């Protein structure tokens, strides 16, 4: 199992958001930004701080696509699968990218460098196909473009 942060590391992250109305999503985003995933150890601490049951906290974490139970690869590549990208060949492109990397959707390369995930719309529908690598967007991509983008990131 991946290493879990300690209680002392988790608590201040949670406490920083307790003054908000509806603090749970900001807490989860912040935990993930710091640790790369939502540590199991945080569930009980959140539940106690927000007067929720652990089941409720787990229910929220599992509802949203963004929250991870384990760290992703060093880099995260999100390929858009929505209709506008499909209209210019994104499905074929995605299948070739996955095949070249030897991955399925949500998979991580053996060296832990790259995770590939689907995303449903990056709002780049007029310059499709689109992708996002580590939060940076790219449009009008093709096979060679994806290779170049990954190379530049050192993947």
């Amino acid at each position: 199992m991946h290493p879990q942060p300690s209680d002392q590391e988790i608590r201040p992250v949670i406490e920083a958001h307790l003054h908000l109305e509806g603090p749970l999503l900001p807490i989860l985003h912040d935990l993930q930004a710091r640790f790369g995933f939502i540590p199991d150890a945080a569930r009980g601490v959140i539940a106690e701080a927000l007067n929720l049951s652990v089941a409720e906290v787990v229910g929220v974490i599992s509802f949203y696509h963004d929250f991870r139970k384990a760290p992703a690869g060093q880099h995260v590549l999100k390929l858009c699968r929505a209709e506008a990208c499909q209209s210019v060949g994104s499905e074929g492109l995605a299948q070739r990218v996955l095949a070249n990397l030897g991955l399925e959707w949500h998979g991580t390369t053996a060296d832990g460098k790259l995770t590939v995930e689907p995303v449903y719309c990056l709002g780049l529908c007029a310059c499709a196909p689109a992708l996002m690598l580590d939060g940076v967007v790219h449009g009008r991509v093709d096979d060679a473009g994806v290779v170049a983008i990954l190379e530049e990131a050192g993947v």
Partner: protein
Amino acid sequence: MKIYVSRDSAAKAVGAERVVAALRAGLAEAGIEAEIIRTGSRGMVWLEPLVEIDRGQGRMAYGPVTPADVAGLLEGSVASLGLTEEIPFFARQTRLTFARCGVTDPLSLSDYEAHGGLVGLRRALAMSAEEIVAEVTASGLRGRGGAGFPTGIKWNTVRQAPGPQKYIVCNADEGDSGTFADRMIMEGDPFTLIEGMVIAGLGVGADRGYVYLRSEYPDAIAVMREAVVLARGAGLLGADVLGSGRSFDMEIRSGAGAYVCGEETSLLNSLEGKRGVVRAKPPLPALEGFLGRPTVVNNVISLATVPVIFERGAAFYADFGLGRSKGTIPVQIAGNVARGGLFETAFGMPLGELVDEVAGGTASGRPVKAVQIGGPLGAYFGREKFDTPFGYEDFDGQGGLIGHAGMVVFDDSADMLKMARFAMEFCAVESCGKCTPCRIGAVRGVETIDRIARGDAAAVEVLTDLCEVMKEGSLCALGGFTPYPVMSALRGFPEDFASVREAAE
């Protein structure tokens, strides 16, 4: 010399940052004095990275520009597209909501004010709450998120609702494929959204606002957060809005990748920190919304249009449009098109004119087969429906919806059975799970379309019946509208559904 380059994420996605770096290097090398101003997007995405150079004769457009073009651009040896505002795609538009977008530096409040910003808010500050709501009602503004509900009526319900704490919640969970108007205005003119939310607050008696912004838009989140800090610093937000003694403040919240949170009750649950499941209505969010308190939930474009209505007057705005669809609509032209981008126009332009003339047909050069209007829950329109005018009622009458006014064009290589299957698959992935027709129906829908694909003619009737159940029985638009793309594909393009063809033969 002034040089303008967009900082919109669509421009960045196609290399605007490299062009700007090359421009800086080129200017330094040539020893040219020039100011580079980063603006929002003009909306002509097929020309991005678009560079505008003002040498004293107006903003001349060049695009798409690559770093290799920069030397020639600075020498003046690259052919220009002419004045940006005379490019036909731009000149044909009526830019009200997007008047400043692409023109100004999005994070300059002085730019904002120099181009008409805050005039509307100053006028609203001198009005009573009743007058503010009456102005919005008179403008005919309807919810631009998709449902088309009259904004003034919604505001009036919240205004009259009892409660010591009310909220303005902006729905910026723009998850529909083919739509990017919310993203573009938030990245390109964030203060107009802030001004619109403050006016809404004054109108209904709310002093707190939230923008629920999808996490897939990191650039928009960053711009909005910075704009809120600037607005607070300038006294546009806070305890004493523009010295009026009135209070309004707001926060930007990030979504977490759930499409269904674009539905208003699911969004409210998510904002409260719960699973983003849909709530049954009633109670309306206007009466029991965020934390059970009276809440205006409006789309980004609805709120961002409020300032221009107050700046120019309700009658001015209502003068544009068609029938009960008043004002302008930012049509987002996307997918397989020659000229993709944002085209703001008065309601009423026929679909065919948008597809063939404005968008210039497909990028692939092949014939247009289908156009999906209104995102993943919108119907596919074939050429036989291209005379439909762009309006809420007109699209409804053709078995479709305008939704958030996104338009995705497909050429004749599109397989409509696959698109129908994708609609069901997407619904299954994104269903919140609260109601059975959506949660189970979408899964069965995928299976049933697979049966049709295998040549089982009897499955067509099952699919039709299933769509009827989903449409009538689902709690929200996700399950309720997924039948639109599915049935429009089945009815409009029977040749792609093999067994239908066989059954007919």
